[in-house]
């Protein structure tokens, strides 16, 4: 199972009401429904994935994330999840704030542009990085707002967003070796290629 799904399962409360942004075929929602009895909706724009999810009995609503979450009232959900879509939306900062308006907590994953392979690619080759996590050319990539862990954390600080948990992983380190895990802990922005953040609004006053 995907690492972000495992973590989402750990961080989401049983019976929670969940919104999954860019839910794909609803794999995570189905898993959470089965494991934790959660309720909720997935938003997706890929036609085939929507039909697959509907065929699995999930509640999927066709919507472009770039249209924002205005259709949802404040605090409509316990948790809002967005896996690997932040870097592909028009206004990641606006969406992030909107996520924390409609839900108490957000779980977000995105690729780390400061991963050492990307740095090498750009630094030595002088060309935009192409990797397993970022398989596109610069001209056809949907990832229009790539960022690093540091960038993301700075954005959170600017908007009083509290980072409850952060888990940085290396997709290439399939075995999750103890050494690699220890190293990633020391220098996540260099060694991890994907991070999973659990964030919440800072208490005012």
């Amino acid at each position, binding site marked *: 199972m995907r690492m972000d799904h495992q973590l989402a399962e750990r961080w989401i409360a049983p019976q929670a009401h969940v919104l999954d942004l860019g839910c794909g075929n609803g794999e995570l929602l189905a898993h959470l429904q089965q494991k934790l009895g959660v309720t909720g909706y997935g938003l997706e724009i890929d*036609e085939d994935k929507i039909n697959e999810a*509907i065929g*699995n009995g999930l509640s999927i609503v066709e919507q472009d994330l770039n249209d924002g979450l205005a*259709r*949802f009232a*404040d*605090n409509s959900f316990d948790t809002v999840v967005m896996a690997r879509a932040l870097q592909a939306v028009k206004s990641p900062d606006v969406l992030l704030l909107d996520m924390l308006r409609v839900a108490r907590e957000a779980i977000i994953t995105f690729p780390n542009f400061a991963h050492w392979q990307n740095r090498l690619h750009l630094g030595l080759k002088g060309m935009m990085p192409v990797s397993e996590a970022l398989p596109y050319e610069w001209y056809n990539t949907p990832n229009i707002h790539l960022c690093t862990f540091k960038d993301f954390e700075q954005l959170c600080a600017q908007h009083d967003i509290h980072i409850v948990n952060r888990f940085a992983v290396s997709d290439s380190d399939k075995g999750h070796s103890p050494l690699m895990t220890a190293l990633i802990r020391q220098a996540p922005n260099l060694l991890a290629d994907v991070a999973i953040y659990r964030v919440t609004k800072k208490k005012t006053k």
Partner: protein
Amino acid sequence: MNARSDNTSDQSPNSQTHVNSSANTAAGSVGVVTPQKFHFAEPLTLECNRTLPSFDLMVETYGTLNSDKSNAILICHALSGNHHAAGFHSVDDKKAGWWDNMIGPNKAIDTNRFYVVCVNNIGSCFGSTGPTTINPDSISSDDSIDSSDSSANHNSEPQVYGPDFPLITIKDWVKTQAMLSDRLGIDVWHAIVGGSMGGMQALQWSVDYPDRLKRCVVIASTPKLSAQNIAFNEVARQSILSDPDFKDGRYIQAGTYPRRGLILARMVGHITYLTDDAMKAKFGRDLKSGKFMYGYDVEFQVESYLRYQGERFSENFDANTYLLMTKALDYFDPTRDYSSAVAKDTTESAVPLENSIAASVESSKANAQNELEDAVATIEDIESDRQQELSALKAAFAHTQCQYLVVSFTTDWRFAPERSQEIVDALMATGKPVSYINIDAPHGHDSFLFDIPRYMGAVKGFLTAPFITHHRPAIGERS
């Protein structure tokens, strides 16, 4: 699509469909079907407070009801539709039922798996009790139900209801369909499916009989008609009402028929089912004779098409039924029984609405600054109206128990995707299970009658998906 095809959303009974007529008994078709008439001897009290002493429903069924009666799907028809949704009426029948591309063996609504029921609604003119059936009042005057409609009763000949037939609402239809369910022994429908006006019936079912359906499919529909929708219906009605042959609706007795009115009504309606692009693709500015004739006869192909559609329609449809059906559309409001729950919201937003009308009159005389302020006020009013609509729908949907699939079509401007999304938003705001797809199709409102793979695939998947039972209200508005 050939230019003469009239695969239109209100399901003219003489519509050609996309089914190969040679396939009457072949795989993919339910084959030859025979309609059945169900008589209901008990009086039916309608929303308008009038009572039908008894009534008939014309019904077609496809597939086989299983032993625990859990595989039944009800199909609700649209404006001018009928019970003949699939298959053929004889081996030589060239024309399949109006939704034959949706219903049949291995199709989206799979008759190998489901028992499918389609009812002709009362007030229609295809065999169920309606304006063209005999008014029992005209036979025996002693059990008169309503003294106001007995004007024709002095005649000793049995008379048809004509304009004396009571006005029917979507809710009334749903009630008669529930009575049919009882007759068929179906306590809970596996699903209720409808497009356009049929979608309204499906939605009303989920509100009125929440424990009698598991799934609700609402296609190309709307939570209620907009002012523009009602305006188009009014033009259609006025076309009929102002035809000298209408004779106050007693044209059958008078030996006339408001053919021109019905043709015009149909032409107006038909335009709203199509799109500018679809008409451009189909007709463009093509001329019938290739040159301008400088007269008022048919010149452009689109004129020829509209007249042909209108004429064909007028041959098979009743004018009083058309009037009644458009009124049923106008009256549709699933929130009506739940208005007390949102009374507070209503009073709050009724005030700014009045202000905005008054303000708009003023603004014509006022300066630019005032106009800007008015514009801002209008935007606020629109938002307030939207919130009021949402609250009303939420109140209506609060106790529903089924899973929903809502489908809209990108080019539908009669019931635009935004209207479907109002339904979806209200369902999500009440935590109800709902999926929504907006199908990219060029045919406007008519799209729901087309065989579009993504659309058919979603309906099929939804009807056969595992039923998720645990759902609970949203935690929204905790603050």
